[in-house]
């Protein structure tokens, strides 16, 4: 006979829904311990707690230091607080490892060295799958051709990154006959500005200063000390000589000039590169006198115009910068 639900029933129903029916707990048999029991380590627990507390303090310290503006040496305090926080946690974990957990030393098998049956099955599966193929070699050739050329097709657009075939750009230089020499602020150099025992950096007027062919190192030598080879004859302007500032070894800028005050007592004038100490002689056309550079420093012929400004009398006597396969095949252009 159906009963009308009364409030008490509703309450019981709600309670059952919320709390759930008590399922009889399956009484576990006394399970064998997997991890052996160990002695309690109450002292170590305190140590770990102290370390964790220290870590907490340091981490909060980091947040405080970060938030407060204009703490002097802020980077040092940030690093110290964060680093120590992490180290305290590390210490807590290590103490836990050594003292709070049981360190079991167990023995287990190495996995099997190989599985001959499975190997046989796999080989069989692959081999037997080809039972319908009669022209195996030809098909393999076809697949190789298609795959190889597809792979090449995917790789070829990489050539858009730069000039891969036409490396003529490596010979480029912005210098032309008549181009004026200017300084870093685009002020033109006069011959009279160039004094002995000093060195000057010059660029072509109107050109990008950052290209390798642009920067020159210019010095004035005593004309009687010049021993330029035949191919560089008359490259100087009354003792003023100009060379590429880019070392022919690996491309660093030559920013050292050895300029003896008292020549009998000191090494002769030279350009030196600070990277691997390739040393070039400005009096003999840039020949290498020390260091690993394998090629002489490119020289730029100079002339002085009617108003006294220094101008290039042509292009370099060779490409600038480090050597490559074709560096001796052509001149600079």
């Amino acid at each position, binding site marked *: 006979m159906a009963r009308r639900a009364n409030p008490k029933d509703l309450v019981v129903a709600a309670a059952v829904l919320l709390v759930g029916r008590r399922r009889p707990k399956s009484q576990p048999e006394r399970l064998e311990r997997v991890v052996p029991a160990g002695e309690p380590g109450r002292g170590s627990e305190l140590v770990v707690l102290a370390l964790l507390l220290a870590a907490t303090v340091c981490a909060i310290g980091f947040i405080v230091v970060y938030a407060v503006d204009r703490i002097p*040496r802020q*980077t*040092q305090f940030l*690093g110290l607080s964060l680093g120590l926080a992490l180290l305290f946690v*590390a210490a807590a974990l*290590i103490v836990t*490892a050594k003292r709070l957990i049981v360190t079991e030393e167990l023995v287990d098998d190495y996995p099997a060295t190989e599985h001959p049956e499975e190997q046989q099955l796999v080989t069989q599966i692959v081999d037997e799958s080809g039972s319908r193929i009669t022209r195996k070699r030809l098909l393999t050739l076809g697949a190789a051709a298609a795959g190889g050329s597809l792979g090449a097709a995917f790789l070829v657009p990489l050539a858009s990154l730069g000039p891969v075939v036409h490396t003529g750009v490596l010979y480029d230089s912005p210098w032309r006959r008549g181009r004026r020499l200017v300084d*870093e602020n685009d002020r033109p150099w006069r011959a009279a*500005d160039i*004094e*002995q*025992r*000093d*060195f*000057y*950096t010059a660029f072509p007027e109107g050109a990008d200063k950052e290209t390798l062919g642009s920067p020159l190192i210019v010095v004035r030598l005593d004309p009687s000390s010049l021993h330029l080879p035949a191919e560089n004859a008359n490259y100087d302007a009354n003792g003023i000589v100009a060379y590429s500032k880019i070392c022919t070894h690996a491309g660093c800028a*030559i*920013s*050292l*000039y*050895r*300029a*003896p*005050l*008292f020549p*009998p*007592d*000191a*090494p002769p004038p*030279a350009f*030196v590169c*600070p990277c691997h*100490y390739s*040393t070039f002689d400005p009096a003999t056309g840039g020949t290498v*006198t*020390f*260091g690993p550079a394998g090629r002489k420093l490119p020289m730029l012929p100079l002339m002085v115009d009617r108003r006294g400004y220094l101008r290039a009398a042509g292009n370099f006597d060779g490409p600038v910068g480090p050597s490559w396969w074709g560096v001796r095949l052509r001149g600079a252009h």
Partner: protein
Amino acid sequence: MRRVCIVVLLALVAVPAAAASPGSGLVHRGKALYGQYCLACHGANGSGVAKTSVQRIGGGPLRRQSRQQGYAPPLRGVGALAADFYLRTGYMPLEHTGMQPRRSRVLLDDGQIAALTAYVASLAPGPAVPHPHPERGSISQGLHLFTDHCAGCHQVVAEGGYVTGAVPPPLENATPTQIAEAVRIGPYVMPRFSKKAISDAQLDSIVAYVGYAKHPDDNGGWAIGHLGPVPEGLVAWLIGAAALVALCVVIGRRMHGGETG
């Protein structure tokens, strides 16, 4: 009456003599010192000694050996600037000719240096001791100029370096005056920068920058010499890797000397 005349005559002579003596006395004293310490290499009256005429022998009266004779450039016209520089840095006297002058213990006292400087200045007209004003210069412009003209040899934070055949020194002990002097002289194989190449105002900036470089902004912590990757690599291995290896040893077990079984 005659006694009065003599006194007046003596006074007339003595006063001008007394007025002249501080300058001429200093130069005179300098000449005596010059004869003692500089003459054998730099020649009489600072005329210089050519290499061909003498051979290299070591030492001077200030440096252990007893006799010095060598060759050296003439000093006529180098002015007080050069003398002040070489003497105050201890570059001179050289231990032996042919070596690079280095900063060393200054064995002459201030009075002797002043006297020698006055003497050398008196040989011929030359530049006076400069007075740079780094406070008027701009550190930013100084860094730019220093990178252009100086960093190739002296390293960008003035920690010194190497050029084939010489050792450009670190500049931590250089005073503003010495920096200005060195720039204008170009000692040993250093280039010489005249006022046309580096104006006095630009020199002020360079001096200001070198002053900054002695204690630059090290916001990152211990600067390990401002040399870059070499000391950084040493720290990475000797502090970083070493600490972590130590940590591994603490955590892991060590081998117990071979087979125990």
